């Protein structure tokens, strides 16, 4: 098993009641799988599926990114206001 440290913010922190959650998961687990695990435990999070950004160790990451022991996964809910979230690309190349 590997240990993953999850950071939660804003409405997610309110839903879960804590800013950090630690999970044990199988080697090879993805960022998306960690999110599904959270949603199963805290169903009100489910309405954010598809409206999120993810980061691993402070770098934007895709849902299929594979996690390593000790990684910090940040779940990034929609940020503050006004911009259409869908279609934005956090990894847009410069």
């Amino acid at each position, binding site marked *: 098993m590997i240990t993953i440290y999850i950071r939660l*913010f*804003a409405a997610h922190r*309110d839903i879960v009641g804590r800013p950090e959650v630690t999970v044990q998961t199988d080697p090879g687990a993805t960022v998306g799988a960690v999110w599904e695990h959270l949603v199963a435990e805290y169903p009100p999070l489910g309405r954010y599926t598809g409206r999120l950004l993810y980061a691993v160790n*402070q770098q934007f990451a895709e849902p299929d990114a594979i996690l390593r022991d000790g990684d910090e996964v*940040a779940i990034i*809910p929609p*940020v503050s*206001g006004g911009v259409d979230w869908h279609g934005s690309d956090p990894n*847009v190349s410069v």
Partner: protein
Amino acid sequence: MQGIEPFVITEAPLDPAPLVAYVQTPGDGAVVTFAGVARNHFGGRPTAFLSYEAYTEMATPVLAQIAEEARARWPIGRVAVHHRIGTLEIGETAVLVVVAAPHRQEAFQAAAYIMDRIKEIAPIWKKEHWADGAAEWRE
């Protein structure tokens, strides 16, 4: 200017003057300052105050990344972005985006782009505290 960090997340009140002084170099004919300010209404509903939260360890480098995105699109000079977190009263400045460039068009365009990208990807969240006592995260 000594001691100015160009990209900062802070609980302290924001002051544009040191940032304007920091970005300005002799080759720049334009300095654009955008200030995002806590407003007393949203969607017709009165707001009492705002609070902001950030994933600071990540938000600070993301601000620098966004400035580099702008630099790849327009010939601009120095950029500074300071974002406040914590509780903000109405009228207080939540964010400052300051851009220098040789010419004004690039400075205006880059400042607008940087602000739009902050609202798209910077891990910073705003909570609206309504005058009636309710509160909700803007998302």
